[in-house]
């Protein structure tokens, strides 16, 4: 042992304990996370132009249950739910009970899923969809405000304007149409709870699908 023993070296070290704090490794962050809507808090107010050309605001539907559906008709996950009529059935079921259903397209111009008003109406017609309105969000402001990352990405807002559900349409995160029949539809369950004035059992889930084609 020609070198000093560990304990003696350690004692020497202890006499001059240095602070080892180095500079932190900085990263770029997500710019929108802080502003995203939060379940169990009031849903952020927004306005967007509908296919009719009229501006629709969340505030217009105060006192009603509102469903927000982010969509992109070319996304395979969206197609899974439209080509099985799963989405349309839910839209009809909900709107029949007085629920306001807003389908929102946040695709930027030239991105997948971006459509004109007439194309959007045509899609609604040919697919037999039944939303209250289809809204355009080409700048992505509304989508980012709600933290919508996927299509489909679903939100349920109660009569008091509080966000009660955010996430996936169901519990089978695949693009396989054969998974639709066996799936538990989170939105249907959430709507039933909200209508009954009860807390939503599974208020937050991981949305699945394609990324929203923001600008």
């Amino acid at each position, binding site marked *: *042992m020609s070198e000093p*023993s*560990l*304990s003696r070296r350690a004692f020497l070290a*202890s006499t001059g304990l240095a602070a080892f704090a180095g500079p932190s490794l900085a990263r770029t962050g997500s710019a929108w996370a802080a502003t995203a809507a939060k379940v169990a808090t009031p849903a952020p107010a927004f306005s967007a132009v509908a296919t009719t050309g009229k501006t629709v605001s969340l505030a217009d539907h105060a006192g009603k249950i509102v469903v927000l559906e982010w969509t992109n008709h070319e996304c395979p996950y969206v197609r899974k739910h439209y080509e099985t009529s799963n989405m349309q059935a839910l839209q009809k079921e909900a709107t029949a009970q007085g629920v306001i259903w807003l389908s929102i397209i946040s695709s930027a111009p030239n991105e*997948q899923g971006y459509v004109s008003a007439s194309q959007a109406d045509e899609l609604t017609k040919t697919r037999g969809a039944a939303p209250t309105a289809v809204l355009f969000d080409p700048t992505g402001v509304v989508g980012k405000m709600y933290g919508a990352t996927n299509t489909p990405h679903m939100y349920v807002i109660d009569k008091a304007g509080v966000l009660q559900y955010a996430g996936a349409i169901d519990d089978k995160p695949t*693009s396989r149409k054969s998974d639709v029949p066996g799936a538990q539809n989170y939105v249907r369950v959430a709507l039933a709870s909200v209508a009954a004035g009860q807390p939503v059992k599974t208020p937050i889930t*991981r949305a*699945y699908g394609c990324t929203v084609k923001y600008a």
Partner: protein
Amino acid sequence: MGTMGRMSRLLAIALLAICLMAASAGDGAAAWSGSPRVTVELVSERDAVAPGKTFWIGLRQTIAPGWHTYWSNPGDSGEPPQIDWTLPAGFTASDISWPNPERIRLGPAMSYGYSNEVVLPIQLTAPANLVPGTRVTVAGRASWLVCEKECIPEEAPVSLSLPVVAGEPGLHPTGAPLIARARQAVPSPSPWPATFTATPETVTFAVAARGLVQDRLSEVWFYPARWGAIDHAAAQQARVDARGITVEVARGQLPEATAAPIEGVLVLTERLDGGVVRQAFALRAAPAAATSGLALLRSVALALAGGILLNLMPCVLPVLSVKALGLIQHSAGSARAMRRHGLAYSAGVLGSFAVVAGTLLALRAGGERIGWGFQLQSPLVVTLLAYLLFAMALALSGVFVIGARLAGVGQSLAARSGYGGSFFTGALAAVAATPCTAPFMGAAVGFAVTQPWTTGLLVFEALGLGLALPYLLLTLIPTWRRFLPRPGAWMKRLEELLAFPLYASVAWLVWVLSQQAGPTAVAAALGGLVLIGLAAWLFRISRHARATWRGAGLTAVAALVVGAVALGPLAGTAPARDPAQAAGGRAETFSPRRLAELRAQGRPVFVNVTAAWCITCLVNERVALRSDAVTEAFARKGVVVLKADWTSRDAGIAEMLGSFGRSGVPLYLLYAPALSGRVAASAPAVLPQILTEGAVIDAVNRI
């Protein structure tokens, strides 16, 4: 992307409809299929299948530039690949072992996945009743999502045909290196404990990866295993300091995700002189606040029990017994005085523990990788402890009598001036206890040193309280003293008898010294012990001598003690012993050359970097490394065990430790067999510091 993407998608659908199946490219390699974006094939590590054997295959995805497929946690969108197997009768397939992913940012969303090429390893187990000479075909349907900006779900049949052989199948020339590389990218179990703390806005992970150098780390990123706990897309603030790595990130959307441990993969990218190394560790971070309450309680209880057991250790028992004898002799004495003696003794124990533990915790905070018993790493401390115990033993043998003011053993108990002595005895008991490690101490101390200093100190003080407790209770509760035997002549005999555990402790410490510092140190220490003996004898006779002689005698005693102590550092300059001697057992002695030789021979190698003074190492060896199951696992895979003994300093071992970002032991490395020289330079799996049988066997099974 619009037109291009749409066109390629149309093309893809057309091609998918045809479902390309290329001609088989020979055994173990595979028909490829897929789309213009992703082609898939099954590759095999082996060129044949042996009955009853487990082997690796891989789903290889070749991904067109700009496109990506997904990890097990795909991030904010996407879907991991899947395989629906059609296996021959009796075959079983494991889940995919996921190689660590890369980050793909798409607008505000973050995906975790793969680009260019990925091989997803899967373990197949063949049934025992396979007939050599036949062929088996492993088939399945692979499905995956591939995204550029747009996403396309794709699927394709995959299959692999292999001959069945009786003996050990050979490595497949193309498949084996592919799978070896993929498995290197699969996260290894984190060698560091991790915790997290959550606020409403953030989650902060603390990974006790000490000894890393911040400047060399170009990137630190935590990939959670599941969605919800952290915001995938948010910035991660990583800090590397003496305590380890902390990563702070915005909280995810799922509030309940922070109620349970958060699992994930910590990827460290390190700049080395030769290039960049990316290492992935599978972490399971426990909630810091939730566990520490329970864990603290458990550790305090364990420490208390361990402290009580310390009383029975040969180096402590005599000290305690002599104190107890004093109680017997003075059981008629004032209850108040006794209580005070008990408290003074306890204060001595606690104070002594506070000093040692405080030093230990301060040094660890400064980045030293040391544990309990670190004092004994110094041959000087070992030598001085041997002197101390020898002097105590001589006192018990009656060679000399320790004055009341000095130690307060025995008859001085009732004297008021003996309180200081009681305090000193307590401190002595604590010091004498340090070489003796009670069974419960390991876990509690292991916990204590990873905690903030207040918590750590609390656990050490619980240990001290346990040590003090038996004597303290005897002094505090007078009725308990009724159970003590009556005083008598037997007490003198017992005192003399109790000298022998101390002599035994001295013998043991000299053995430790011989392991640590070789024959010269032993000779120096033995010489010192002779001087201590002479000093003790002179001390006794000078007390009865005339005043003039007494002064000279005491001066001589002091000179002898100084001389003995001066011999101590000689221990530190003695040559190191032959490490092979300590290695023992089946293990071979480590040397970088031997490691390279074995690796070149294609042998799997387990390197055990250990030290005689490292309690964790010894516990690991006993609990995990020497167990029958581990021995069997090593034998089955033909693993050669190399033992690197760091009891004495060794530049080669220190350098190796340094290359793994360590400054201390234990370190356990498992090198997978090198494959036809192609991955001979690959990094080994680093096993956790606290080994369990299961952890070792798992690691061995992975190679």
